[in-house]
């Protein structure tokens, strides 16, 4: 909201520098976000008026507030007494105002003025409008704009002779009606739009903009001046429906002061008399009719009783009761009664936001100054409360996941949770949660997978020659299936090499780095058993794509990004990605850390070299011999080989079995016995051959 300082001075005598004025307004809740020089010794202040203070959307309102804050005298605008209506009663100018719905339009004043001379506005009006960046049109329009800025009451002027049927009807638009507005746009009216109409057609979109056909022009000599009050949310809905935000709609949406509907109309009349009069002295503006139709009194705010203790309870401090009473009066409120520590008050018509004790406490705090309220430390809180609140959400768990992955050298990213419809279509996702009002097609759907997000981050980095990457993101994936679904997931991705030295050796990331990240996580959360199976996936190459299962629930998918996906995202380097579902991980995680005694006796390691059919996986081998004997403490895969010693339909696998007892040192012959049992199992059940 722009305010011209010199205009403000019509109502208060400001005797402090502009910087001090700005600071004082800011610290009382009218934040001045800018003060630009506007001509000689004048400033245009930019004031942020919060939505609860429509009374401050005018020069007068800001002046009233500034007077209170700076303890200055507020010069009320003079009350206008109308001269006697002309005796020349002209029957032809009779007209009616019909308001169909008092909730939509509580008050409408129509004032007919005859013999108006349309011409340029006087210099002081043009000058002030120009400084406030309002385009000058003609004296008639400029006067209404001038009053809008000064008093906050929007008004509209119709060419009386273009109004058909001598009537103003305030009604809802009918189906199929259209209106050509003064900014030359043709709008298709909705049945929920409130319009001002004459006998035949809509002539204005109520509270927002007038129509072109009844606009005042150079040839106009008779006018109808509209000053009204409309239902704020109705105006708001219509303004949004048609994308027409105007100075008028801005104020009507927030609510105008009921008495000002009349005083502004009278003020306009006075200015018309002065500045839109015929040159010919013999004629005067003839007021034929001024009709004030009040359908519904806008009620004053409620009478409020509050206790002084309420102020102290909320603010932690209590100004003197004398100061409180003075401030309340300064707000224009009436103190209805004071009994002991209770005050009963009534706010003025322009402060309809003051309806509860909390509203008054805020006013008192604001005028007292937030800076004067003391600082007090919070007392200690009972611990059991904290624990019960902690159950809401996965904060601790998520943090441990992030910490775990960053400890093994992965870098966290945070990407946009919105992806394009093109992506969700390409990867055939169902039950997607798409936006109704996306900004762009690129960000139109909540991601159903973490992969599109991280792939774009790889692309961004590749395009900047950052190729060696180990990234992860903990985020959500979203679906809609009879209701919204949000799942936490972590995505891990590797590209390039993890190690490089200046002697030319380097070690590239591969699929097993994904499994390493996965096993670090499962290990961290005590999920000791999971199975990996071949499973195709729309993102991964057919020969390197897997699913990971914990108790038949899918814990993760992982694999090498396929060439078609690389092409789609313009990825220049190969990369490996895993998506891990944290709800599953969390469900199977063990909460407690359980200490186990370190082994006291040495272990015996034995290697077995196997030749297996290609169809047997290493996981099959390990599972087959795992848990067969309690002395087997671990089974490790130490080598996988193929070559001339191995038949082409077979593969070589070396496993290292560690045998350990917790209560004694093992003897070789007992290990020999177990080893041979295990070998027999492998030979018998998996068709393995043992290489000696």
């Amino acid at each position: 909201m722009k305010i011209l300082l010199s205009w403000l001075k019509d109502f208060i005598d400001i005797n402090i520098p502009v910087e001090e004025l700005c600071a004082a307004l800011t610290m009382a809740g009218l934040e001045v976000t800018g003060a630009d020089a506007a001509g000689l010794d004048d400033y245009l202040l930019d004031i942020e008026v919060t939505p609860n203070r429509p009374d401050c959307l005018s020069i007068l309102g800001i002046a009233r507030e500034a007077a209170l804050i700076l303890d200055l005298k507020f010069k009320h605008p003079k009350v206008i007494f109308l001269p006697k209506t002309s005796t020349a009663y002209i029957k032809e100018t009779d007209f009616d105002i019909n308001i169909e719905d008092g909730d939509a339009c509580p008050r409408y004043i129509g004032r007919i003025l005859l013999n108006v001379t349309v011409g340029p506005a006087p210099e002081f009006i043009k000058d002030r409008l120009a400084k406030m960046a309002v385009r000058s049109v003609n004296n008639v329009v400029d006067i209404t704009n001038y009053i809008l800025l000064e008093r906050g009451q929007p008004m509209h002027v119709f060419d009386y002779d273009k109004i058909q049927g001598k009537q103003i009807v305030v009604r809802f638009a009918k189906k199929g009606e259209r209106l050509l507005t003064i900014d030359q746009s043709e709008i298709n009216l909705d049945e929920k739009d409130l319009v001002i109409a004459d006998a035949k057609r809509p002539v204005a979109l109520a509270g927002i903009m007038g129509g072109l056909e009844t606009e005042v022009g150079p040839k106009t000599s008779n006018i109808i001046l509209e000053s009204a009050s409309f239902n704020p949310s109705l105006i708001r809905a219509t303004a949004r429906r048609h994308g027409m935000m105007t100075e008028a709609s801005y104020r009507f949406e927030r609510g105008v002061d009921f008495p000002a509907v009349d005083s502004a109309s009278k003020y306009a009349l006075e200015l018309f008399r002065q500045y839109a009069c015929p040159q010919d002295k013999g004629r005067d503006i003839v007021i034929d009719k001024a009709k004030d139709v009040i359908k519904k009194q806008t009620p004053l705010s409620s009478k409020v009783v509050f206790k002084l203790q309420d102020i102290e309870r909320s603010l932690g401090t209590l100004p003197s009761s004398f100061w409180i009473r003075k401030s309340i009066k300064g707000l224009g409120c009436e103190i209805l009664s004071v009994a002991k520590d209770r005050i009963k008050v009534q706010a003025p018509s322009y402060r309809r936001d003051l309806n509860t004790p909390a509203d008054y406490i805020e006013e008192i705090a604001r005028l007292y100054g937030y800076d004067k309220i003391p600082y007090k430390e919070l007392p200690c809180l009972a611990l059991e409360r904290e624990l019960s609140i902690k159950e809401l959400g996965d904060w601790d768990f998520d943090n441990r996941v992030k910490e775990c992955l960053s400890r093994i050298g992965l870098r966290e990213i945070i990407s946009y949770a919105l992806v394009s419809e093109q992506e969700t279509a390409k990867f055939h996702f169902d039950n997607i949660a798409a936006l109704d009002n996306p900004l762009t097609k690129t960000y139109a759907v909540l991601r159903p997978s973490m992969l599109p997000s991280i792939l774009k981050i790889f692309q961004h980095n590749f395009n900047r020659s950052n190729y060696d990457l180990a990234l992860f993101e903990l985020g959500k994936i979203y679906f809609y299936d009879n209701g919204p679904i949000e799942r936490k997931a972590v995505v891990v991705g590797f590209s390039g090499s993890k190690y490089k030295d200046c002697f030319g050796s380097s070690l590239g990331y591969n699929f097993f780095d994904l499994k390493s990240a996965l096993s670090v996580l499962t290990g961290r959360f005590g999920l000791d058993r999971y199975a990996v199976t071949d499973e195709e996936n729309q993102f991964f190459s057919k020969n390197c794509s897997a699913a990971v299962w914990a108790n038949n629930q899918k814990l993760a998918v992982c694999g090498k990004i396929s060439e078609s996906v690389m092409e789609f995202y313009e990825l220049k380097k190969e990369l490996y990605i895993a998506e891990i579902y944290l709800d599953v991980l969390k469900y199977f995680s063990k909460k407690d850390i359980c200490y186990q005694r370190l082994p006291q006796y040495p272990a015996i390691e034995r290697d077995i070299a196997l030749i297996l059919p290609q169809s047997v996986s290493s996981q099959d081998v390990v599972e087959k011999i795992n848990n067969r004997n309690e002395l087997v403490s671990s089974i490790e895969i130490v080598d996988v080989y193929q070559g001339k010693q191995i038949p082409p339909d077979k593969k070589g696998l070396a496993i290292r079995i560690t045998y350990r007892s917790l209560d004694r040192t093992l003897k070789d012959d007992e290990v020999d016995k177990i080893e041979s049992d295990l070998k027999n199992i492998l030979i018998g059940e998996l068709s393995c051959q043992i290489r000696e």
Partner: protein
Amino acid sequence: MILEASNQKDLETVKNFYLGRKGKIADIIKNIPALPENQRPLIGKEANVIKQQIAALISRKQVDLAKNLTPQDKIDVTLPPNRSRLGGLHPITQTINEIVKIFEHIGFCVVEGPEIETDYYNFQALNIPEGHPARDGLATFYLKDNDYLLRSQTSTVQIRIMQQVKPPLRALSPGRVFRPDNLDASHSFMFHQIEGLAVDRTTNFSHLKASLAYFVEKFFGPKTGMRFRPHYFPFTEPSAEMDISCIICSGQGCSVCGRKGWLEILGAGMVHPNVFKEVDIDPEVFQGYAFGLGIERIAMLKYGIDDIRLFANNDIRFLEQFD
């Protein structure tokens, strides 16, 4: 013997001699059962230690041989280090963690809420009815074909907490929020906020001031100036915005603070009685404060970052600067 090996084959022989299935170490271990019982664990341990030492020597020698270096060759110590990369957390996560840590000291704990929300949680329960002009500043993404929306503020979690837990309570809720703002240097359609809520019988505005002052001191440093300005939020009353003295120009006035010397960093206030009524908490008995701040904004201020898009681009060279 290890050091004398001049090629990989020699080294392999040496390795077998010590570490093979029938090598020296295996020999020792095999004979352990024959030793007096009290010596067995000791010898076993010793044998293992020696075994590891030899293995380490051998593998180091293997690397040397591979590079054709002998211990007599002097290495160029000025060659660059082998590259190894640290993992790390995103600056947004770091900022959230830092804020959480500060408030945990004064009894707050962290809760979370959904990002797909209803009009009720995002607006109505927060005292922002349909048609309220405060909705202007909170433009919102809606989902297609249903009544859900993406939360435009983390204040939604205030309602969710108080529906489930009755006061006294102190909670923080960090998370993503969405607003239909086009991407530019200072706007994004997705960013992070953190919401704070403290409710009991006596928590008042002066507690709010002290808690936030503690946060500013810990987060921005003890010399940071601060002020509270009256403001308006539908879900708090009295409401305030908090400014800190500009950390770029120390309050002298610069382009970052718009020559005002102050930077707005958060909104706060006493929880509005209507919000309490909505969650069946009696505002005559309980009261408290709430605050909310934008993570990207304060991370940008703290680190002097001039473009919000950097956070979501995730250029590794950007991310590595926050270790």
